[in-house]
């Protein structure tokens, strides 16, 4: 009897092995071809100088890295990317959180508000950037007209990157809000009732109940938004035309990567930039992972 059971068990294990690999095989092949090999190849290429027309790559050791790290452009781009993220991430998270809390109740028009806030998510960034560029237009734009100002929003090197970050905030609020609304569903209602009976105000409840209880969601949104913010490209590419005097002070790391790889066709150098981006993102993510122990509550 025991022997028969064992045979059955090994047959079952073999079955699961065969079916399991059969099922994961397409994804594994795809991941290896589309992602694993490309990572290795990108790192390899970062040590090469790309020949004309992409042939005759020449090994140059650390030259690309030396060139990149001694070139002011990359540090400026890193600074621009940080400036963008420092506006986009906190504002999009804070506003989205407040909106989610306001909408997390039975009320008239709830789904209409939610639908409106989420609307930019389903639009192509190319179109979003174009309309904002038009709003920002210093001569004929709506913004200068409404505020009776004469501001060169996106061609002033001092302000351009922040103006682009505002577009980023506007675009992503709805997405963050929906994630927060999902997180808020998990917070038991009686916590608020108990707090109300104890006389805690709405603001107090927000900081002492809501924030701690959905801190895992906030943390998750933070990590993904920082990563997303550091990868900003579409908005900058679409808003800043070549020749815009503020371009140098707005171009992000991914913009520089695109420019080097596909405009100047120097893929070796482009690879170096994207490896740099990878390192920056990894450092910041590890940092956030460590910092979360101080403020994220898991029950």
């Amino acid at each position: 009897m025991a022997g028969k059971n064992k045979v059955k068990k090994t047959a079952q294990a073999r079955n699961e092995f065969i079916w399991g690999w059969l099922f994961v095989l397409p994804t594994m092949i795809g991941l290896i071809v589309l992602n694993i090999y490309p990572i290795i190849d990108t790192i390899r290429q970062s040590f090469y100088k790309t020949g004309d027309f992409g042939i005759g790559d020449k090994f140059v050791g650390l030259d690309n890295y030396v060139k990149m790290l001694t070139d002011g452009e990359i540090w400026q781009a890193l600074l621009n990317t940080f400036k963008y993220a420092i506006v986009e991430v906190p504002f999009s998270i804070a506003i989205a959180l407040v909106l989610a809390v306001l909408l997390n109740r039975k009320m008239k028009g709830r789904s209409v508000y939610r639908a409106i806030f989420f609307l930019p998510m389903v639009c192509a960034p190319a179109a979003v950037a174009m309309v904002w560029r038009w709003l920002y237009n210093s001569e004929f734009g709506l913004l200068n007209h409404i505020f009776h100002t004469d501001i060169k929003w996106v061609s002033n090197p001092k302000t351009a990157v922040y103006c682009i970050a505002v577009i980023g905030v506007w675009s992503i609020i709805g997405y963050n809000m929906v994630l927060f609304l999902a997180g808020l569903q998990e917070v038991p209602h009686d916590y608020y009732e108990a707090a109300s009976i104890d006389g805690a105000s709405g603001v107090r409840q927000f900081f002492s109940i809501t924030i701690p209880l959905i801190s895992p969601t906030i943390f998750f949104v933070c990590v993904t938004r920082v990563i997303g913010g550091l990868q900003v490209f579409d908005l900058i590419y679409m808003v800043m035309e070549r020749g815009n005097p503020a371009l140098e002070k707005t171009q992000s790391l991914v913009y520089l990567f695109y420019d080097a790889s596909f405009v100047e066709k120097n893929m070796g150098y482009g690879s170096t930039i994207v490896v740099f981006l990878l390192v920056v993102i990894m450092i910041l993510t590890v940092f956030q992972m460590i910092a979360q122990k101080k403020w994220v509550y898991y029950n």
Partner: protein
Amino acid sequence: METRKKIMSVVIHVVLILVSITMLVPFAWMILTAFKTVSESTQVNPFVIFPKEWQWENFTTVINNMNFFMLYKNTLLMIFFRIVAAVLTATLAGYALGRLNFKGKGLAFGLVLFQMMVPAQIFIIPQYLMITKLNLANTIFALVFPGLVTAFGTFLLRQAYMGLPKDLEEAARLDGCNIGQTFLFIMAPLTRSSMVALGIFTAVFAFKDLMWPMIINTDKNMLVLSSALAKMQGQYASKYPELMAASLIACLPMIIIYLLFQKQFIEGIATSGGKL
């Protein structure tokens, strides 16, 4: 107490309405500009808010010049094949990783997690070189290529399968189903909502993607909506009414689908985005 509650409710609505206006003004301005003449759009004294005559010609001009029918077709095909590929591969792999025990599973799942942690730009140059070396640039396949498999979708479906009760499989096995049949007839249908979520997620992000379609398909007959808009901006420079008309035409189908299936869209994005 009652009046205080009422005041609070009014304040909340005022805040929400103000934010709504901020969210809608760019869309309104896009629509209003799309119907103006170029000279109306650049008139400042007085500033023109509403067009004197609604210029439908702006739409016919850009539809003809940019061949929007073809752009829709290319975009739709890209989205369709990406959804099929993503849902199919992720469902299979998600089931294996979520419900089966086999040697090498940890390694396979590790690969999935690893891919999710790396910024996507790091794949682009080698993917570009593969496609161009195979002479497949300027095809629908090239547009679909980076989305043939999805680590994120695999993760999402794995979570869905892990949430299903264990006894379902036992019952199926006792009834004589093999693993393939159990998956196909019993388990897969139960993850339908996750499949829909992944499909919506895939569609929205394929539609929004700019860099990949822009670099891989440069032939003007193989552009998609987003890359065509980017190209158009360079050509039309300051003809904003036509640029706005084109933006509107490009975004409208997705907006209409979104408004019709709002609940599925938002829930799909919330469940998939939240489980990442």
